[in-house]
Each structure stands twice: as C-alpha cells, then as structure tokens.
C-alpha cells in the first residue's frame, strides 16, 4: 500500500470489551517510541491480515491527542459486514503485531468556533472522545448530545459524563428519548459550529434541519465513513495496467485492485476523501455507489466510481487504472 499514508509498526497492548457489541483496542509502537501526535477527529487505517487476505479499515482515534504513548480505537461488531470487525473481535489479542497508518483527519474541529455543538449516534461517539479531550485540555466550549439504543449500549457514556458532567446529554432509544433538534439548533450562540457523526439517517436528518434553520454549510461538519458493503462478486478490466480481476463477495473493489498489485491512492477507505476516484472507460450493467464524495450527477453519468466503497453488477466494467 505504497500509495496510502506512512505506516506505523505497532503491537496490540490491550483489548478491552466495552459492552456486548463494542471492544476497545490499544496500540503501542513496537520500538517503544511515542506515536505521532494527532488532532481530535483523526482516524487511522488498520491493516488486518486474515490468512491470505488483507483488509484495511479506518477507525477514529479515541484517546486524548495529548497522550501519544498509545492509540486507542473502538470497534463495533458487525455480524453481517465483510468480516473486518469480526476479525478484530475474534483474532486480535494483546501482543499481536499490526500495522496502522499515520493519522489522517477528515473531521477536524473548526478552531474559530466560539462553541462546538456535537451530536453523536451509537459508535459515532468515537471521534468525539478525542475532540472533547482536546477541547477540554485547552478550555474550549463544547456540548455533546449522544443518542444510543439502550443504556448498556451507550459506549463510554459513563466516562463522558464523569469527565464533563452537564456538558454531556444522553438520549436512549428504548426510553423514547429524542434530541429536540430544532430547539437545540435554534438556541445556539452566534459562532457555534455543529458536528455530527452517527448512522447515515441521523447525519442526513441533522444536516437537513440545520440547512432549513439557516446554518451556513461551513459551520456544519459531519463524519460519514461508509463501511464497504459485501455484495455479489463481479469482474473488472483495468485498462491501464492491462489486468482483469474478480472482486469477491467480501472484498471491496479497492482491495481487489491492491491484491492484483494495482495501487490507487486512498486516504479514508470510506468514500469521503475523494482520493481513490477512478474514471470508468465503459460499462454494461449497474453501479452500486456507496460513497459520499461524487455528486448525484456523477453517479448518474456512469463516468466515475469510488472503488473503496462502491460495487457493480452486470456484464462488464472497464476502469482507467
């Protein structure tokens, strides 16, 4: 993966079950040095060597950016996904040597903000763990609203409440508690920035309400990693490298290219950064676009695809790679 970020050789220093779905992983550098500093909202791409296949998944760093002795990530088990989270849960134990990328931040704080209003849903809490730690360390003004299915699935809710008290507000689906979004968005001081990370539906809802209530687009920030979805296998011809490859059911198109020795650039592997954008030379079939980078018009045109998350069904697909 020469085209991605610089790599860090790490060792798993701890594995901590957090609740029935989420497990936390701690990484230290194998050479004992400090890890690179990062900013709240950054992610790393974790390389998972699972037999003869390698998956590369992005996870938000959730430790304090002020402490770089270790990196911590939290992984939610996804029983119907492509197996990356299951691999982490089942096969990653303390002492395992792994490789992670340098941190990359596609969800950074706008430090001009007078106040940071954060909305988290479910596992979308992780980037806010680091952001709140960063802001708390520098006297920043923030408020966090966190929705989860049940109290026992409220990952880190207890930690956050203990650290930040009334700056954290919890909402439990099973108790029918809902963020009063319109009221919340209408009562913020001038200079507030809004951050949202959670399920797609939540992100869309928040962005849509914010726009309707007159929030300028540059004050609304969202983190929207789409995990690559499994799907039917399909064949692709790579016109530049002159190869034909098969994308397996549990593989992403990007992973299949990498397995064939073709290395498109990437940063997020989640359809948001735009790095892996690839031109379509010709196709006969239908695209399954899962990215948040291309415009709807691009999607309709059939000229471009983001191989980190998107798939294809049909007779033939030729890409300019």
């Amino acid at each position, binding site marked *: 993966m020469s085209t991605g970020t610089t790599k860090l050789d790490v060792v798993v220093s701890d594995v901590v079950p957090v609740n029935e779905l989420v497990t936390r992983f701690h990484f230290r550098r194998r050479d004992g040095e400090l890890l690179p500093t990062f*900013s709240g909202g950054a992610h790393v791409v974790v390389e998972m060597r699972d037999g003869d296949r390698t998956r590369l998944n992005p996870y938000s760093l959730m430790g304090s950016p002020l402490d770089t002795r270790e990196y911590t990530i939290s992984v939610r088990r996804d029983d119907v996904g492509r197996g990356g989270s299951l691999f982490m849960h089942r096969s990653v134990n303390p002492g395992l040597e792994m490789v992670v990328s340098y941190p*990359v931040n596609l969800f950074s704080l706008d430090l*001009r903000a007078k106040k940071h209003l954060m909305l988290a849903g479910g596992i979308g809490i992780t980037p806010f763990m680091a952001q709140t730690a960063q802001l708390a360390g520098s006297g920043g003004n923030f408020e966090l609203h966190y929705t989860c299915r049940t109290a026992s699935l409220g990952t880190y809710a207890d930690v956050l409440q203990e650290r930040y008290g009334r700056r954290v507000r919890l909402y439990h689906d099973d108790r029918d508690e809902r963020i009063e979004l319109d009221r919340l968005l209408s009562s913020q001081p001038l200079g507030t920035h809004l951050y949202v990370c959670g399920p797609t539906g939540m992100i869309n809802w928040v962005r849509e309400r914010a726009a309707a209530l007159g929030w300028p687009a*540059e004050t609304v920030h969202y983190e929207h990693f789409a995990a690559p979805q499994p799907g039917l296998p399909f064949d692709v011809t790579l016109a530049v490298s002159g190869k034909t490859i098969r994308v397996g059911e549990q593989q992403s198109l990007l992973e299949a290219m990498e397995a064939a020795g073709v290395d498109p650039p990437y940063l997020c592997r989640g359809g948001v950064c735009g790095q892996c954008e690839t031109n379509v030379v010709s196709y006969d079939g239908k695209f399954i676009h899962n990215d948040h980078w291309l415009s709807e018009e691009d999607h309709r045109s059939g000229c471009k695809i983001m191989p980190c998350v998107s798939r294809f069904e049909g007779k033939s697909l030729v890409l300019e790679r």
Partner: protein
Amino acid sequence: MGITFRKETFRDDFTFNNSPEHIRRFPFPFHEDSYMYAVNIEPHVVGPKGSVLENLIDVDEHYVAEMQDRALVLAEDPLRCQSLPHMTLAGWDLLELLMEQQALGYPEHFTLTRDGDRWRWINRPLGIDDTFTFGDTSTLPYGPMEYITRQSQGDFCILDQRDGNLWMDAGMVTTQADWSLDFDIGMNFFEWHAPVPLAHEKGIFVRALKFLTNIQQGKPARRLNWTMTINPRLDTSPENYHKWGPDRATVTPENLGDKVHLRVELQSFWRLPRSNGIVFPIRCYLIKMGELVTQPKWARRLHRVIRDLPEELATYKGLTRYRPTLVEWLSKLDDGSATSPGFGPD
C-alpha cells in the same frame, strides 16, 4: 564540527557572501537549459549529504545574520508577523516541528529536552536557553509561532484547512519576494494566488489545492521557485518597494557580478498534527552572479535560461529592465558546449 556563522548584512552596506562550500550547495533550480512554469511538487525527503536537503529544515552559515535582519524588519513593521486567534495551536505545532528538526539536524547548535510538557530549548548561535510549558503561551516571551520563527530561517505561512480550502491565517513573513502577509492574511488559496500569470488557468490551482489539502502527516512535500533580486536584500516586500524597486535601474556590466542575485525559494508543505493545519516554510537562498559563475555549468545554463525566457515570465519576475545586460554578461561565459543533466555543479 558545526557551522561557522557569518557576520554580514542584507541591507545598507550589503556584506552578504557565500563561502565556497555554500556556493557548491546552492539549490540551483534549473535541471535543463530552459525553464517553463510548472507545478513541480515532489516528496520532501532527505537528500544528499552536503546539499541543502541534507536536513528537512536547513540551517546554514547565514542563520545568525538572517535572524538579526528579521528582528530589524519586525522592529520597523510588527505586522510582518500575524496570527489570527484560532491559530495558536498551529503555532505550537510549528514550534515543535522546528525545534525537533533543528535539534535533530544540528545537535551541536540546538538542544531540545522534554519532560512531559516542561520543555527546555537551547539555541547556542543566538544565546538562548529557555524553559517553558508546552501549550502555555504565558511561559514564552512571544506567541509560539513568533518565538520559534524568530529563530528559524525562512518565511512561514500557516494555513487553516476548512471547507475544502486553505486559509492564510498566520505567518511570519520578512524575507518575501514581493508579496505581503498583511494583505493576504485571512484569504483563501484562490484569493491569494489571484495574480500569477501563465498559470492562470484555474485547473492548475484546483489540482494544486487538492494536492495540498491531502498532504499527510509524516509526508511533507516541496517545490522550488526562483526569481532575481538586485543586492542581497532579503526583505523585498511591497511595503518597501520604494527601497528596492529603484535598485533595478542601477545594474551595469561592471557591478552586475556583485549586485545581481539569483534568489531561490525552497517551499515545503507540512501537515501539522494537533491543529490539522498546513505550514509552508519558504526558505530563501541568495547567490550573486559572481559566485554562481564560479561553477561553469551553471554559468552556461543560466545564460541559456535567461536568454530564452518567455517575455511574460521575465516581466512577471521583474527582470525586464536589466535582462539584456545580464544576458550579454553571461554570454561571455557560455562557450556553447553541452551541460550535464541535473541541477548540481560539475
């Protein structure tokens, strides 16, 4: 064994000179006998020993004199150093980067010791030994950016990244080639690049911006830029045009070897870890024609480059007035023989 720092000036009596070793390490910017504007960005990785790329942040024999010149500029015009309020964290990032790199590259001159957030910084050439708390501005005599850039060669622009754009929200700019921080502060990438000719097609800038916003931590990049300056004047700012502009009319064949300088800017681009900002150090290297032509290959090549430079570029770089005199002067050193490939002297 350490660097012997020169005592010299970049104003008034202009005693600036390069030692013979420094002439040979000059970052000559032409790899062939012609020049065309291009976005020539490459990874900023360590280069050959004895070159200006031996360390990623270069310190050379002009360090002390340049820092003295910077202090003079700032005393006259404090607006050459500005940092919008949200950029303080990026200032700490830059302080860390420059202290680390200078201490790494030149341990005989700089030492950084850290004990948690208690840091001690020793800068022997400037006689500084300060202990401070990282992150606490009240423990330094200046803001973090100003503090460290008063001790680092080159100009520094710190850019905030937001809304898919870069914003010039902080900087220390005292050695610039004709642009003004005070004018550009708060502008975004497209606004501050507005006046470059020949590269005006927006496409180049859109691609450059895309590249820059994707600069990653641990993977800096760099490019070279060049112009010419009359007299070894570091500060050729628009604010001071009345001081340096008229110099261009003073070039004669007799004084040219001493007066006309090739000015090369080594720009590098780094992602800052805590603030997620980007810093552009813009390091300026000067060499007078008399020094440059001690390397016959460079003399022949420079002659061909300047002679064949498209008119618009010559105007943009401000060479029009003395170009004929310069070409004539250099032509005497060009026997027409081929030049070897690459930048370096033979």
